[in-house]
């Protein structure tokens, strides 16, 4: 139970016990004066109060003192026989001991409960506690002592049982009231805070005390019934002086009342003294209870008010401090202000701030303080090093960063030097707060209070918050300070820059950018723009077009182009712009800027604009002058150019004074050579080639140059070469008008002259030729005439019509043509070719076609129908040819043949041919149809008989089978006949067309052999094949060839009874030789010729056996013939036959 208000160790225990015992004994003894016999029961027992208070304050050890005191007092009382009815000694001791135990127990119980329920508060701190004290301590536990005491007295015989009640009540009342009076008194005075010992308080206390004494005197000694007067006094004491006052006044009243009552002058009078005392006690009890209660409430209220006041004070202090922090601009001032606020508003005694230095001493530098004299703190040399001097709360706080509270400096005044000084100045408790930021402790804020225990946890937290805010503020100030310095530096540099920009003579600097939509915007502009353009900086910054609109409009395209180039290539932009400022004046402004990419990715130009008007003007003047100079140079050069003519100056006497360079080159003289020489002989020969006298000509010119303004004469080069020159002569007169010089300018016309000469010569030649030609022409004409006559003779005597056409008009036609066309002689001449044509349409059609063909240079051969004079139509064969293909109309000659008869014959022929072909077609169709028609029924016959014989339609009995077989055989024979007949017909009709395709001969032979093999086996005849390896492809009709092979094979087997049949094939001379050899009956020589005739059958007894159509071999022969081959037979009667077929590998054209 750490009640901080109780100070253990203030007294050593034994002294305490002794003190308690003595005090208790004394008080008890005093009370025993008022005992009610028998026994020591007394209604006034202040010792009980002392006992309770002692145990509450000192703890259990005081119980010993209480027991000793009680034991002593009671034992002594009982040993003093005068007062006690008991005789023997030991009983008294025992009784005394028991009573002592009871007293101790009562005090213990009371103290226990009070401690228990008051916890850490003072028993008198609140109304609740006071009630507890009263009810439990005084009244409740006060029952223990009387119980013990009275019982022990009864047991000791001192007291009879009937008096138990009365005695117990008396004891209890006595103990209770005693507790009520004394316990609070002791507890209150023990707990008193440091009073503000105002003079007025003391005076008031004195007044109150006096008043109380006076009142008591009157009430209790003079018996004046103004007991009510005590009430205001108690209230006064309670309200103004709290628990101490209330309990003190209560005690005084109690004392005086008791004294008065014992003297019999109290207002509480009873039958007996004891009764009076009891009444008194009840009065006292009520009064004091009320007073204590009120005081307790007051105490509570006061404490709450005090707490609130303190809190209020602290909060206000903090608020003020925060205000100070917000408005702080100077760190030192801030810290000082804070210290002042803490002390003034916070109500603390002293405050100071020290920074933890990191020097070798680790000193704490005081930087601000309130309440100390100057230099005092510095002299302390506080340190936070972990050494002896640094062990105080400041050092600890700086090292650990945790606040430290010292509740009572007086307990250890030398613990820290600072504390000592503070203590000297009235500080009693202190709080050290660390100023820490980001884990670093900057320093400490020390606050000292006049009161002890002034830093409760609540307040401490507030002050910690204050310290943190302060730290924050200091750091912020420092940062701001740094910022402020930086800002100041920045502002200064900005100002410098601005001045720089604004003070430029005739220039201004700018910064511009281009918006996304292409418009310009100035980011920055120096003041020079006002002077140069008459525009305000702000206006231009707002609207760049104000400036741009001053630019001469004709420059805008170039400007935009240059800007665009600068933008896209990020190259420097330089341009001279003509701009009209606001006052109307035109200036030349040179703009020079460099683009860069800003951090935002935009392109920004930094540049300078300078007024270069003056420079420009100077430039222009210079340019103008240069131009003039250039012009005069040009003129001069032109002049010199003229010196593509010869410029000659010569004096009237004929001497040359000047010859220009061209002339020098032309004539071949240098200036030195020619100047001074006479013209004649140097440039001019004596005589022209034609003979003209040039010397005299020159003379004439010099005499009268005007007459010879233009003159052509021959000149001479240095080499002697003659040249012709066209001269212009001008007089150069002197001041008097005399001929000073003659200026001659000449151009070389030699070539022209030569050309002229040539022309003349050509003309001459031409004339000569013309004469010759005329002669020739005459000769020609006579020749032509002769030819013409010949021609006419041919013309007229021709057997076919001849016509000459020109421009589609019949120029001439011969007699024959006229006859053909049915015209009289001479009728056709001069007529348009239209008259020939049967109608306009044919004429038009004919024209186009005819002349187109003629233009190709070919002879047009055509058969067309023409009309006679009488309108009848006739057919002609026309051959027309143009004389000149390039101009067919100019002349064409045509031969006209009457082909009417021809055509008729042709027509007849054609018709006959058609008829024949038609007949052929009919034949073919007939054959095809017959072929088809004949075969179709056979299909059924052969097919169904085959089915029946195979038993597919059901079983046949042998007779049916036999008869069916006969039918089958006959139908097969019929088919063979039909096939052969058709074949023969075709062949005879020439309708048999052989296919022509390449196929392999060997497989065909093999196939046929395979087909015939069953039949051969049936007859017991072997079939051999001997095909040479070189046998390959043949171009022929596969089907027909196979038919032939089959036929021959069949025949071979047919006519052989025993032995074998041999088929052989080989290649010879590009022909295949197929041989079919059998070992049959053979043939007689006379039979052979007719073998290949149709319907030939070997007439022999065996004929019947051999079913055949008789057509086979003839068909074979025909086929082989058509294939371009041949078939032969060699046979021996009775031995066998060999049929040989010869076929070309590839048929020739004729097949």
């Amino acid at each position, binding site marked *: 139970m750490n009640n901080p208000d109780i100070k253990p160790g203030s007294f050593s225990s034994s002294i305490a016990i002794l003190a308690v015992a003595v005090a208790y004994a004394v008080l008890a003894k005093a009370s025993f004066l008022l005992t009610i016999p028998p026994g020591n029961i007394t209604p006034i027992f202040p010792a009980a109060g002392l006992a309770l208070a002692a145990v509450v304050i000192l703890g259990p050890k005081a119980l010993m003192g209480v027991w000793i005191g009680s034991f002593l007092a009671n034992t002594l009382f009982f040993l003093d026989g005068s007062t006690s009815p008991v005789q023997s000694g030991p009983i008294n001791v025992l009784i005394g001991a028991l009573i002592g135990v009871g007293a101790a127990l009562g005090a213990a119980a009371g103290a226990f409960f009070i401690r228990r329920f008051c916890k850490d508060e003072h028993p008198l701190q609140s109304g609740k506690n006071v009630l507890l004290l009263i009810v439990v301590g005084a009244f409740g536990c006060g029952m223990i002592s009387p119980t013990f005491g009275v019982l022990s007295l009864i047991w000791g015989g001192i007291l009879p049982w009937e008096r138990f009640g009365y005695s117990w009540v008396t004891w209890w009342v006595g103990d209770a009231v005693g507790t009520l009076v004394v316990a609070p008194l002791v507890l209150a005075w023990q707990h008193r805070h440091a009073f503000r010992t105002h003079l007025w308080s003391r005076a008031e206390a004195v007044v109150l005390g006096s008043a109380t004494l006076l009142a008591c005197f009157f009430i209790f000694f003079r018996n004046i019934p103004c007991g009510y007067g005590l009430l205001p006094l108690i209230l006064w004491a309670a309200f103004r002086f709290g628990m101490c006052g209330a309990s003190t006044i209560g005690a005084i009243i109690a004392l005086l009342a008791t004294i008065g009552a014992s003297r019999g002058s109290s207002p509480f009078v009873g039958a007996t003294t004891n009764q009076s005392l009891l009444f008194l006690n009840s009065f006292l009890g009520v009064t004091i209870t009320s007073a204590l209660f009120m005081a307790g409430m007051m105490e509570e209220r006061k404490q709450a008010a005090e707490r609130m006041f303190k809190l209020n004070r602290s909060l206000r202090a903090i608020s003020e401090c925060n205000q100070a922090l917000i408005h702080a601009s100077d760190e030192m001032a801030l810290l000082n202000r804070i210290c002042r606020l803490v002390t003034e508003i916070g109500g603390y005694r002293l405050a100071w701030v020290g920074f933890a230095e990191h020097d070798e001493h680790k000193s704490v530098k005081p930087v601000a303080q309130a309440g100390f004299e100057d230099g005092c703190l510095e002299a302390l040399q506080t340190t936070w090093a972990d050494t002896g001097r640094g062990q105080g709360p400041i050092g600890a706080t700086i090292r650990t960063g945790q606040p430290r509270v010292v509740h009572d400096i007086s307990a250890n005044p030398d613990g820290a030097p600072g504390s000592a000084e503070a203590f000297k100045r009235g500080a009693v408790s202190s709080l050290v707060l660390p100023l820490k930021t980001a884990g670093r402790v900057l320093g400490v804020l020390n606050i000292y209070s006049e009161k002890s225990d002034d830093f409760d946890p609540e307040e401490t937290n507030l002050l910690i918050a204050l310290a943190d805010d302060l730290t924050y503020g200091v750091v912020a100030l420092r940062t701001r300070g740094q910022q402020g310095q930086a800002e100041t530096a920045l502002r200064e540099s900005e100002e410098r820059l601005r001045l720089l920009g604004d003070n430029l003579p005739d220039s201004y600097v700018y910064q511009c950018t281009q918006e996304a939509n292409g418009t310009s915007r100035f980011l920055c502009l120096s003041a020079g723009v006002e002077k140069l353009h008459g525009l305000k900086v702000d206006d231009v910054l707002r609207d760049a077009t104000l400036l741009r609109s001053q630019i001469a409009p004709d420059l805008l395209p170039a400007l935009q182009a240059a800007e665009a180039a600068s933008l896209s290539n990020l190259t420097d932009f330089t341009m001279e712009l003509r701009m009209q400022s606001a006052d109307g004046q035109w200036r030349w402004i040179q703009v020079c800027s460099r683009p860069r990419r800003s951090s935002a990715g935009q392109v920004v130009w930094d540049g300078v604009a300078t007024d270069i008007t003056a420079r420009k003007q100077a430039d222009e003047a210079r340019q103008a002058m240069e131009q003039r100079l250039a012009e005069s140079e040009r003129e001069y050069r032109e002049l010199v150019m003229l010196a593509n003519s010869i410029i000659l100056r010569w004096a009237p006497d004929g001497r040359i004074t000047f010859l220009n360079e061209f002339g020098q080159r032309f004539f071949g003289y240098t200036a030195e050579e020619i100047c001074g020489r006479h013209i004649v002989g140097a440039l001019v020969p004596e005589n022209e080639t034609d003979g003209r006298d040039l010397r005299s000509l020159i003379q004439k010119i010099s005499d009268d140059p005007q007459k010879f303004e233009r003159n052509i004469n021959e000149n001479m080069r240095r080499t002697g070469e003659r040249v012709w020159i066209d001269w212009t002569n001008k007089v150069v007169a002197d001041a008097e008008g005399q001929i000073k010089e003659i200026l001659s300018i000449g151009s070389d016309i030699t070539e022209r002259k030569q050309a002229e000469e040539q022309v003349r010569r050509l003309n001459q030649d031409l004339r000569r030729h013309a004469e010759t030609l005329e002669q020739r022409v005459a000769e020609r004409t006579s020749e032509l005439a002769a030819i013409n006559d010949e021609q006419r003779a041919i013309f007229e005597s021709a057997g076919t019509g001849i016509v000459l056409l020109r421009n589609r008009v019949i120029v001439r036609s011969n007699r024959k043509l006229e006859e053909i066309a049915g015209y009289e002689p001479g009728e056709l001449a001069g007529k348009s070719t239209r008259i020939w044509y049967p109608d306009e349409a044919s004429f038009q059609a004919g024209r186009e076609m005819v002349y187109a063909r003629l233009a190709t240079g070919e002879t047009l051969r055509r058969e067309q129908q023409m009309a006679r004079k009488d309108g009848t139509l006739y057919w002609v064969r026309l051959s027309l040819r143009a004389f000149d293909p390039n101009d067919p109309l100019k002349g064409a000659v045509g031969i006209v043949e009457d082909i009417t008869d021809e055509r008729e014959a042709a027509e007849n022929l054609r018709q006959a041919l058609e008829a024949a072909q038609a007949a052929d077609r009919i034949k073919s169709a007939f054959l095809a149809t017959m072929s088809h028609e004949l075969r179709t029924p056979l299909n059924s016959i052969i097919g169904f008989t085959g089915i029946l014989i195979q038993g597919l339609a059901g079983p046949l009995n042998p007779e049916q089978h036999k008869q069916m077989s006969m039918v089958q055989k006959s139908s097969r024979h019929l088919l063979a006949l039909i096939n052969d007949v058709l074949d023969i017909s075709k062949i005879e009709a020439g309708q048999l067309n052989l296919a022509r395709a390449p196929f392999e001969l060997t497989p065909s032979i093999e196939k046929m052999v395979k087909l015939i093999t069953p039949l051969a086996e049936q007859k017991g005849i072997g079939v051999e094949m001997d095909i040479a390896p070189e046998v390959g492809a043949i171009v022929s009709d596969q*089907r027909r060839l196979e038919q032939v092979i089959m036929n021959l094979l069949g025949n071979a087997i047919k006519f052989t009874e025993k032995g074998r049949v041999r088929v052989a094939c080989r290649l010879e001379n590009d022909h295949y030789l197929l041989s079919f050899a059998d070992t049959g009956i053979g043939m007689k020589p006379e039979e052979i010729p007719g073998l290949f005739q149709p319907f030939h059958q070997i007439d022999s007894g065996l004929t019947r056996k051999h079913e055949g159509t008789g057509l086979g071999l003839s068909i074979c022969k025909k086929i082989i013939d058509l294939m371009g081959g041949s078939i032969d037979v060699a046979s021996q009667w009775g031995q066998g036959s060999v049929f040989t077929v010869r076929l070309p590998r590839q048929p020739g054209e004729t097949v």
Partner: protein
Amino acid sequence: MNNRLLIIEDNEQNMYLMRFLLEKSGFTVIGAENGKKGIEMALQCKPLAILLDIQLPEMNGYEVAAELKKHRDLDEAPIIAVTSYAMVGDREQILAAGATGYIEKPINPETFVAEIIEYLPIKQGADHAA
């Protein structure tokens, strides 16, 4: 397994004959008596092969063959011309028109089926090989 054969033939007896022989050999025979019907049937029934007479009323055999060949799904079915081969040139013409082969009339009842099988696609032919 497809064993349908289509016969386009206008002559009743010829039709009967061929049908008899083929059915005896296990084929299913579908008949059509003219070209138009024949084409319809071919498209409907997708026969294994088509036996085609050349001399047909209205549409002749060449036209029918050409028409049949136009249809891709009948591409696989060989067209076998069964005809009384008359004139040279008929053969080339019918082969050019798309027939795979031809069999001459009058048919040989003993070998007819085998000859037909020759022209069938191999698998089916093997199953029916005599």
